[in-house]
């Protein structure tokens, strides 16, 4: 294992609980490389997760960490950030965690543009509970609760985040870990709500039931469905079917919530009248 990231791990917590071939470890490595290259101190980082396979990440990293309730990583993180804005607050969520049970919190965190990074590990399935379909399971794929094929449309989380008011929005995959690491680093450094969705593989709960039994087959599939944004834009609607654009969708600088709140405090201290 790469020495530069080992220092950020709680070694006594290993071995980890993830299945062989799972993509979550790749995302964990990408996040730690991003943190290392920024040079943040461990003491100033708070990493918050919800519930699911991806949420176990927080147990393995040597920061101030929290493994909260299902879907609620963002409101917990919001309380932390507002009580101590000097902390670097990162949330890690899965697709069910973020887009289903936590969907409301996700759009409102974006609306506030609070300085929190949301890393969403999208393996398109509820992995920990055994393969039920999620809001990001592609239409037509099989889940244990969609045995005849999923008829739901899935969310485009990046479009959702852009329209809800985030500052930085990007999508990458575990197949393109160099790009993923670059986006994660930019997201960490962005003052505002930043979102990086990373398409990940779940060979056990998604792959086996969808005829991609090995991690390699799943990664090949991820490679085949992800298309760089500039190429994707030139595709016909039929060609876009079943494909996901990758790249950066938004990178802007707009007023950030905890900063805005400081203005509120100043206004209140001056008697509440003049802005």
């Amino acid at each position, binding site marked *: 294992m790469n020495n530069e990231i080992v220092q950020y791990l*709680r070694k006594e917590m290993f071995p980890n609980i993830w299945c062989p071939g799972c993509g979550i470890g790749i995302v964990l490595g990408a996040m730690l490389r991003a943190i290392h290259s920024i040079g943040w101190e461990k003491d100033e980082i708070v990493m918050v997760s919800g519930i699911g396979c991806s949420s176990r990440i927080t147990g393995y990293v040597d920061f101030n960490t929290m493994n*909260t309730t299902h879907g609620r990583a963002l409101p917990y993180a919001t309380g932390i950030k507002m009580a101590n804005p000097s902390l670097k607050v990162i949330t890690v969520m899965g697709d069910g965690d973020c887009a289903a049970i936590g969907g409301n919190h996700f759009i409102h965190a974006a609306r506030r543009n609070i300085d929190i990074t949301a890393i969403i590990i999208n393996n398109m399935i509820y992995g920990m509970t055994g393969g039920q379909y999620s809001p990001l399971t592609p239409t037509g794929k099989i889940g244990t609760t969609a045995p005849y094929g999923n008829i739901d449309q899935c969310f485009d989380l990046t479009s959702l985040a852009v329209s809800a008011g985030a500052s930085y929005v990007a999508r990458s995959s575990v197949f393109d870990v160099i790009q993923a690491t670059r986006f994660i680093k930019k997201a960490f450094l962005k003052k505002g709500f930043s979102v990086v969705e990373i398409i990940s593989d779940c060979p056990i709960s998604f792959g086996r039931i969808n005829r991609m039994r090995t991690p390699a087959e799943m990664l090949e599939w991820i490679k085949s469905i992800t298309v760089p944004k500039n190429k994707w834009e030139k595709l016909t609607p039929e060609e876009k079917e079943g494909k996901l654009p990758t790249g950066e969708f938004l990178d802007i600088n707009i007023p950030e919530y905890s900063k805005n709140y400081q203005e509120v405090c100043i206004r209140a201290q001056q008697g509440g009248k003049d802005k």
Partner: protein
Amino acid sequence: MSEKKRLEKILQGNEACVEGAILAGVRFFAGYPITPASEIAEGMAQRLPALGGVFMQMEDEIASMAATIGASLAGAKAMTASSGPGICLKQENIGFAAICEVPCVIVNSQRGGPSTGLPTKPAQADVMQARWGTHGDHPMIVLSPSDVTEVLNITIKAINFSEKYRTPVMLMLDEVISHMREKVIIPPKEEIEIIDRKKPTVVKEDFLPYKADDDLVPPMANFGSGYRYHVTGLVHNEKGYPTSNNKEIDYLIRRLTNKVELNKKDIILEEKYLLDDARVAIVAYGSVARAAERTVKLAREKGIKVGLLKLITLWPFSDDTISQLASQVDLIVVPEMNLGQMVREVQRAAEGKCRVISYSRVDGELINPLEILAKIEEEGK
């Protein structure tokens, strides 16, 4: 009374709750609009920014509870407030605060239920939910003031208990207590006891985040203070890491409850009124306790020896006091604005030593003193 001129104000119950919380050091509040608790959020929105504190109106009740717990972990004394429907939504995260031992106060301004129920009318039907609303064995401290001055003082107590015992504390108001206006004497700061959470004293390398002291409460490090640790809603060991070791599981679950149960003497607040020679005792709490006090006077004018035990702390329950009382009196009457919730606890603690009866009202109206008196007279025939 001290020489110092005391500050007197006419306050609504919800306003007194805001004053008490701010005096106790609350500097973070997250809430969501709901009748009859909204004035607490409005008061916090007005007051906290000038104090450098944080008020946040969140997207829902669940987020309000989560943000409150997050802020507490980052070092703020934190509070949220709601009513029945909102309290239902907060329950999962209240359990998180209990198992992770994060100090926080939840105000429940009770209205009639179930569901949307009676938003503008009082009830006391959430007292069992307050104790057992979140799943699993867990500790809970629940306090119930009965007038506006008491709202202020008991809010301070609630914050103090949450900090001292590292546990969620629920403060039970009701629609009438929340909206009633009374003269409140605000104590000067130097007369208010403020309790802050214990901080770790060991070097960082030796820090075990869930290793309890003799009082069963572990010292608490704030996020960002240099003591890095893991907080998880999974059952965890002293290191804060998830465990499936039977001994570690058993130790945590018992310790969580015992840290409250073994400190009952400190936590139980109750008031006795004319009980010494009583043959009949009224056990009451919240706004009903005020009516009951009047009942005692009216009964004594008629020559009936009635006394009152007013419960301020509802949970942990006053087992010992009720047991002693049951040995002394012939009858205990428990008037409640519900179909008889705390009366079952009174019956359990009385162990059959006297008759215990319920007087219920669930029509959205307060119980008045004459009703309780009529019940006592009827039972005495």
